[in-house]
């Protein structure tokens, strides 16, 4: 059966290459007769990837340890839904899932009316780019990262899924990221095809808007869920550590978000046509780059990933894709007219895109710094989290300020809606004033809170007007910006005002952190299903002595993972100050060591994240054609 699965991968590879080749020959000969045949190939590719995935899932569920992948990532004790989630626990499986996401989004697009309306030559070029990508995936899977390797004889039990991955986060975080990366493929391929053929009919961002917006939402949700997972379960002491692995997923998001904003200018004004083709293509390529970064072993991360042989093929593929994109953009049609005065909504949107892109570029370079610095330094140099915070946070604050002002600017020059602006700024002042009053006085977070307050109130005002049909802003956009503002408030408080203390306690002993008293009620060892644990039960009391919460973090040693310990943190959740506790272990005299931190307003990030990932879906429905000019 696994030979069949491998054959399916080869079939996907051959079908992709053959279809792309046929389409290329047709365009070369200025013919379009082959479109029907080329179109059929996507069904073959999707079916092949789909069946191969099905076989892998079957192997996982059936505990067929003759499959190396199953033996590596599952064992008999694993629950069924984690067995299914083990599909993306390792590199070959996650690549297969990504390929499947790409293939299916391509097939779905082929079913739409938007696709049917494309001119035949554009279709051919679209399929050339699309099949180049699926062909690359199939080659990668067949040659360098085959999920269907077998072991003889089959072991009785597998090695088990890393306990860190046995968490609901594992079920959603990786697939959302891959759906995000994969979802940008269709818009990028149509954009490139229109770059080659010229624009006949509707532009790519309208024909593929559903794919673009959905992919963006998936990626946003994936990144935020990753942050939540790191914070709540992995016990790494924070939601964002600027680790290469985290940065890798942020880069496509930043470029994709920049694209969303420059597209507003193109949609309303017909400008920046070529820039947008470049940006959407870069978004897709950066998804591959993210994989390259975490899979090639080029960067030494604390969370070392297995070094796979996929680094070089990915690098070559990205180089080709980049070259093709640049050539197409260079020779494609220019947009109409130049930009308006910078002090206009157009200018603000441009600045927004610049900030997103420069953030992406800085994070890219900083992550690659150990490699880049080799050019002039004898030993590689690295940059720590402080570097990112120092450079990226001011830029993010500037972004918030632009975001607060932008809706009130006119398209041509100056502020259009002064009342709205004043109201929004008043909202900002109130929020920043409250923070100041509660003695959160650091300047930089205050500016962020001011901007976030202005966005919050401004979005609400605009949403109310939208419901009364008095503005052309869409609810999806406003809701998303509201989410950004909530996240910004969460970050501006929880980042600079987080308090962490290591406490060494005996039973009954207590210690003070912030305005809270932490008392160790009890500590002891015990046994769970397949692990031993050391648990500390802590009582948290506020300054008046009332019990706020009891938390019981654990330190676990799983039977299958000898010599490794896993932290199970416990959080007293709150929309205000959250108490976060983890057990570090025992000190030399047998006292228990716990790390307790006070994290103000962290929950706001998760609420904002839900807004950002779900509400933009309201924008999926395209506007009526009469409405289209007003953006």
């Amino acid at each position, binding site marked *: 059966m696994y030979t069949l699965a491998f054959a399916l991968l080869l079939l996907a590879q051959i079908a992709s290459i053959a279809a792309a080749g046929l389409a290329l020959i047709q365009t070369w000969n200025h013919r379009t007769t082959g479109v029907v045949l080329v179109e059929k190939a996507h069904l073959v590719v999707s079916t092949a990837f789909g069946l191969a995935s099905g076989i892998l899932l079957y192997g996982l569920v059936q505990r067929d340890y003759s499959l190396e992948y199953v033996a*590596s990532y599952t064992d008999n004790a694993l629950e069924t839904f984690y067995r299914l989630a083990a599909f993306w*626990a*390792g*590199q070959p499986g996650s690549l297969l899932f990504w390929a499947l996401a790409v293939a299916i989004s391509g097939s779905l697009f082929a079913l739409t009316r938007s696709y049917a309306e494309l001119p035949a030559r554009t279709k051919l070029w679209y399929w050339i780019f699309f099949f180049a990508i699926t062909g690359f995936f199939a080659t990668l899977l067949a040659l360098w990262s085959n999920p269907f390797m077998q072991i003889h004889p089959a072991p009785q039990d597998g*090695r088990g899924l*890393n306990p*860190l*991955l046995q968490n609901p986060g594992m079920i959603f975080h990786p697939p959302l990221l891959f759906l995000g990366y994969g979802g940008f493929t269709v818009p990028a391929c149509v954009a490139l095809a229109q770059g080659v053929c010229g624009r006949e009919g509707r532009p790519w961002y309208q024909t593929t808007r559903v794919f673009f917006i959905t992919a963006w939402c998936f990626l946003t949700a994936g990144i935020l869920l990753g942050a939540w997972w790191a914070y709540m379960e992995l016990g790494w002491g924070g939601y964002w550590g600027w680790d290469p*692995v985290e940065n890798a997923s942020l880069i496509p998001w930043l470029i994709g978000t920049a694209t969303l904003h420059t597209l507003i200018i193109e949609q309303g004004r017909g400008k920046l046509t070529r820039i947008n083709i470049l940006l959407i293509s870069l978004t897709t390529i950066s998804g591959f780059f993210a994989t390259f970064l975490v899979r090639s072993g080029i960067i*030494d991360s*604390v*969370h*070392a*990933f*297995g070094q*796979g042989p996929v680094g070089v093929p990915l690098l070559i593929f990205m180089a080709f894709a980049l070259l093709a994109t640049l050539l197409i953009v260079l020779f494609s049609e220019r947009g109409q007219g*130049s*930009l*308006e*005065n*910078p002090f206009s909504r157009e*200018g603000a949107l*441009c*600045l927004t895109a*610049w900030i997103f892109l*420069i953030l992406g570029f*800085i994070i890219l370079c900083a992550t690659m*710094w*150990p490699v880049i*610095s080799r050019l002039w*330094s004898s*030993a*590689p*140099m*690295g*940059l*720590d989290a*402080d*570097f990112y915070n*120092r*450079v990226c946070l*001011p*830029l993010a604050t500037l972004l918030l300020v632009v975001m607060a002002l932008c809706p009130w600017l006119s398209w041509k020059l100056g502020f259009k809606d002064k009342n709205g602006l004043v109201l929004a700024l008043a909202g900002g002042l109130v929020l920043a004033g409250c923070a100041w009053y509660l003695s959160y006085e650091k300047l930089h977070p205050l500016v962020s809170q001011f901007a976030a307050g202005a966005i919050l109130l401004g979005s609400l005002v605009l949403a109310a007007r939208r419901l009364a049909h008095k503005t052309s802003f869409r609810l999806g956009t406003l809701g998303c910006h509201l989410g950004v503002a909530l996240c910004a408030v969460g970050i501006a408080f929880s980042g600079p005002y987080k308090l962490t203390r*290591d406490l*060494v306690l005996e039973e009954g002993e207590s210690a003070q952190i912030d305005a809270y008293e932490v008392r160790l009620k009890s500590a002891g060892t015990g046994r769970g299903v397949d692990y031993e644990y050391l648990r500390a039960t802590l009582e948290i009391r506020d300054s008046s002595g009332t019990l706020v919460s009891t938390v019981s973090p654990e*330190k676990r040693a799983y039977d299958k993972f000898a*010599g*490794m*310990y896993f932290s199970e943190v416990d959080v007293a959740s709150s929309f205000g100050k959250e108490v976060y506790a983890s057990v*570090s*272990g025992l*000190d*030399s005299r047998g006292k228990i*060591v716990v*790390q307790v931190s006070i994290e103000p307003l962290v929950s706001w990030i998760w609420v904002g994240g839900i807004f950002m990932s779900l509400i933009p879906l309201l924008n999926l429905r395209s506007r009526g054609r009469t409405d289209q000019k007003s953006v």
Partner: protein
Amino acid sequence: MARTTKKNSCMYAFIALLFLGGVGYLIFSGLSENSTYFLDVAEAKVQEQSKLGNIRLFGTVQSGTIVPPSEGLGVSFNLEDQHDKTQTMHVRYTGIVPDTFKDGAEVIVEGGVQPDGTFSAKVLMTKCPSKYQKENRTS
């Protein structure tokens, strides 16, 4: 029309310069204060002292050299080079010791080399056996 276009381009160029200048300053200050050398023990031993103020050192824990402090949290041990076992450096660390820290563990320490040649570590990390793929697949 042509004049406003040109004026606009100039303004964009000016704003871009201002923007890039600010970003450039941020990056420059970040690079000068927040960059650390990544070194192996053997490499660190031949570097000049001026470059060793803030470095990240890779190595393995020499067996039998782990000593807990007389009081408080922390540990001191000898870090040996991953390739050349004869090259070692004494490390002192104050703070929470990770669970996976033990004889022979691959560790990363951040801090500076003191004039007496010992390494004073602010950060001690053990390299976690990869998150997604296990090392030593054959064992």
